[in-house]
């Protein structure tokens, strides 16, 4: 699975993460949350909403260093897709992508836009885009940096089902081609089964990994029975 010269595995060991609650008390939201992905693997973090998945993701991204533990990231650029597209509203689609990935060449840039059906929207501003299109731009931006680690925080939440399905297909193809180590946060079991090599099931707060399930590729060609059995495994683990 790992390509030659891979930038190393992702090794996440969060011993403890506390935040101040509204009442001023310290609340522990992550406790012994640990998982590991080899280079090029896709891992899904799945758990009840509000269990601290996004907090874990911010720690993995290096955006939050106030925790006990250690995170070893693959060497190289980080690509991230947040729950909201987080585009710069005063910049065009093209500028939004190029600001994050200044080194991308025109051919690669054009190909990426085409892949994500964004070719007609190059010069548009984020206010002119639908949510689905804006999410595509966020995906394009994350891939444009040629990431060695890709973090996707519920990238398809609040999209209607057919659109989410289409985007998931595009994402799957891109991830497969690039062999990039990917962490996907989701509360959608189907999405996790469809996209991930490994699924890590999280407990409610304070979140920890209560089970790991390996999904055997090819994911696309998985039979309904296999998918059902994995889903049953996850349901058995879920509290």
């Amino acid at each position, binding site marked *: 699975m790992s390509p030659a010269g891979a930038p190393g595995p992702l090794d996440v060991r969060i011993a403890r993460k506390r935040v101040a609650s509204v009442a001023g008390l310290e609340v522990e939201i992550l406790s012994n949350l640990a998982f590991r992905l080899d280079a090029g693997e896709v891992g899904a973090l799945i758990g009840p909403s509000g269990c601290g998945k996004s907090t874990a993701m*911010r720690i993995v991204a290096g955006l939050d260093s106030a925790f006990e533990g250690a995170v070893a990231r693959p060497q190289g650029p980080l690509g991230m897709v947040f729950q909201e597209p987080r585009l710069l509203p*005063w910049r065009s689609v093209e500028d939004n992508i190029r600001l994050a990935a200044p080194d991308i060449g025109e051919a690669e840039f054009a190909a990426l836009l085409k892949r994500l059906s964004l070719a007609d929207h190059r010069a548009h501003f984020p206010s002119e885009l639908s949510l689905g299109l804006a999410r595509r731009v966020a995906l394009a931006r994350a891939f444009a940096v040629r990431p060695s680690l890709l973090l996707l925080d519920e990238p398809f939440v609040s999209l209607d089902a057919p659109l989410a399905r289409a985007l998931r297909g595009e994402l799957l193809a891109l991830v497969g081609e690039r062999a990039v180590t990917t962490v996907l946060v989701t509360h959608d079991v189907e999405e996790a089964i469809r996209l991930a090599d490994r699924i890590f099931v999280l407990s409610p707060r304070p979140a920890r990994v209560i089970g790991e399930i390996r999904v055997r590729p090819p994911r696309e060609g998985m039979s309904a029975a296999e998918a059902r059995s994995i889903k049953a495994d996850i349901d058995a683990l879920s509290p």
Partner: protein
Amino acid sequence: MAARLLSLLSLLALWIVAARFGDPRHLPGPLAVFAAMGKAAASGELFAAMAITMARVAASFLLAMAAGAALGYAMGRRALVDRLADPWVVVLLNLPALVIIVLLYIWAGLNEAAAIAAVALNKLPNATVTIREGARALDPALDEMARAFAFSPWKRLRHVVLPQLAPYIAAATRSGLSLVWKIVLVVELIGRPNGVGFEINEAFQLFDVAMLLAYALPFTAAMLVVEALVVQPFERHVSRWRPRPA
């Protein structure tokens, strides 16, 4: 547009009527003022005075905006800086412009530096408070995005922070320019040997209202032109990405 023109014309008509029936020494008619303006322009004094006053407006405005933006940004981002600097800003905000001007002239002497500093200090707290609001309203989600994609500090400032601050900078510019040019005239009147404010004081001493208006009107017109040709286009430029209201 037509209503505005009508309003301006009625003002002119009122001026002519008042000059006709009043004491011409107190209020000379438009023709007398234009004659005085022509005389001041022909001697070059009008343009020299306007140029030096404009230079003072520009210098004190830029100084106040730069210092106010830096201080306001720091106060908006860091609670400690805000707590430390806020009482100073409140004091400056409420100190009459005249007090600041006179104090600086006494402390630093009747010189150019004191004049510029006095105007800048009068404008500084307004700029600071406005930019502080902007810094408080910065979107943390975009900041996080910039960090995730490893934007350099310069790139973050230029592409993430400044565009968010731009409407606040535009507001501070608009209110600041009109404040600064009025205070510059007072500073010149009290302690400078040249400039529009100085000439107005001369006219006051001579009780020469035609000369007073001959300096005041072109300068006011020039500031309106700056507002229309610089400030308003800047405001439109920084908000061009916003969706137009339907």
